[in-house]
């Protein structure tokens, strides 16, 4: 039995075989190790088990669903920042070049994420979302030409810099929690690494936006999410669903509070970000999507 020949054969029908196997090289090692102990007759079974492990990941459909879900969130973030930078109905001024540059940096990353995810999905990508498909006032009414008319929870999001920062912080913290929640679907898949690389960039954004928010509002908001009885340390009540559960201090059955001297309840909550389920994120995202485009 020649493993290399088998892999060559598979490669003819599945060009991605080595990609599928490479993140799971240990499966190959397990196989070789097992080969020392089992009889030749049992080898085909062991080989089949190896491929079950490599391919026994989420279906392509499940992976694509996660990527399309992520793509929706990236469209949301991209259009939100892009409009703040370019929208003709934006009346607030950025307080400094540094502030405008930071939002530009974040906008560019979100655009890169949109392009990356849409490119990876190819024909499986969801329909593109335009700025006019969103309702960043969350419940606003719009004219026939898509210009803003009135209302919404964040009615002044593009006329009040402070409101803009509050919503931006909520979006980034949502993004961080959303990717985390979907990680198990991508387990063992090379695309997980890419998702994690996006996830930590969102966390960097969140950290910076929290510092911008703290400076602009004159509040003590930390770069990390600290303990609050309802999880929401921002004091922005409409953002409560974004922070639901962030007060948790129990991780994988281990209580973090007082796990060592000085690790207070606040430190325990700060030291682990929490995840959101897909349903929780959909509820949040739908607040900012016009009815026809809701998830």
């Amino acid at each position, binding site marked *: 039995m020649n493993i290399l020949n088998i892999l060559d054969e598979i490669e003819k029908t599945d060009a991605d075989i080595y990609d599928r196997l490479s*993140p799971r090289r*240990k499966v190959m*090692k397990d196989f*070789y190790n097992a080969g020392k102990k089992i009889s030749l007759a049992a080898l085909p079974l062991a080989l089949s088990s190896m491929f079950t492990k490599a391919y026994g990941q989420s279906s392509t459909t499940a992976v694509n669903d996660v990527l399309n879900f992520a793509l929706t969130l990236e469209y949301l973030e991209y259009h939100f920042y892009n409009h703040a930078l370019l929208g003709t109905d934006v009346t607030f001024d950025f307080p400094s070049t*540094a502030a405008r540059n930071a939002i530009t*940096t*974040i906008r*560019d*990353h*979100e*655009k*890169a*994420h949109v*392009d*990356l995810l849409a490119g990876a999905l190819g024909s499986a990508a969801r329909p593109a979302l335009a700025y006019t498909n969103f309702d960043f006032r969350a419940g606003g009414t719009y004219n026939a030409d898509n210009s803003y008319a009135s209302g919404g929870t964040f009615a002044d999001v593009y006329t009040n810099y402070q409101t803009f920062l509050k919503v931006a912080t909520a979006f980034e913290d949502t993004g*961080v929690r959303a*990717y*985390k*929640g979907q*990680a*198990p679907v991508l*387990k*063992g*898949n090379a695309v*997980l*690494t*890419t998702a*994690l*690389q*996006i*996830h*930590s*960039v969102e*966390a*960097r*954004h*969140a*950290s*910076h936006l929290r*510092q911008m928010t703290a400076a602009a509002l004159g509040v003590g908001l*930390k*770069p*990390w999410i600290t303990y609050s009885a309802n999880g929401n340390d921002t004091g922005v009540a409409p953002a409560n669903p974004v922070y639901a559960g962030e007060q948790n201090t129990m*991780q*994988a059955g*281990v209580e*973090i509070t007082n*796990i*060592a001297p*000085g*690790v*207070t309840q606040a*430190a*325990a909550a*700060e*030291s*682990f*970000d*929490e*995840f959101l389920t897909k349903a929780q994120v959909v509820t949040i995202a739908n607040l900012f999507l016009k009815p026809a485009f809701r998830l």
Partner: protein
Amino acid sequence: MKSENVTPPTKKSLDKERYNRRKFLSALGIGAAGVSLLSSCERNDWYDQFKDNKDGATLDFKDDIGVLNYAYALEQLEAAFYTQVAANPASGFTAAQKAYFMDVQYHEIAHREFFKKALGANAIGSLEVDFSSINFSDAASVLAAAKTFEDLGVAAYNGAGVRLTTDAYLVIAGQIVSVEARHAAWVRDQISNGSFADLNDLSALGSNNSGGLDGALTPDKVLPLAANYIKTKINVINL
């Protein structure tokens, strides 16, 4: 390939074995950094058990335990660093910076203690650190080191996640890495405001600015970098 029925080693044979291994690795130029990558053929069951940290810690990547111990090793390093920073903060730090360094210290201690408790009997021992290259009384030196640790930590978690096979551990790793990324962004902003996610500056750690992607490094790339600050020899098997 050694037989699995080896005679239990004596102190002398262990020393000789280690000497030979070291000689072999240094000939390859990879032992010097304090990290050795042993192929699975070199693995001895008795060696696996002989992992008291006086003679090095062994990270066996054959399963999730190895990945968690890898994270535990990195968290030990970060916690030790920030404990020293917080105990004697450089005079150049503002009160706000001192307060946040105190926060970060407790986050890293929480991570370290979490892994220690979660791993239980499977945990590697305590690592001995070497911070001789850091001037703790100089704010710039401390910030530069903090940036190195945080960016490396993010890249390490991002690169190791794909190895995890247990959903719960994968989520925990995600819960920790985003906090490390928050630290990294804050530290970077202290050095240069606006550099919180300078992905071009992270290319050595595997970032990709055109894709908006943070760093991601496999353990064999991370450990030699971390080894600059770790005295304890770290052996890696089944990677």
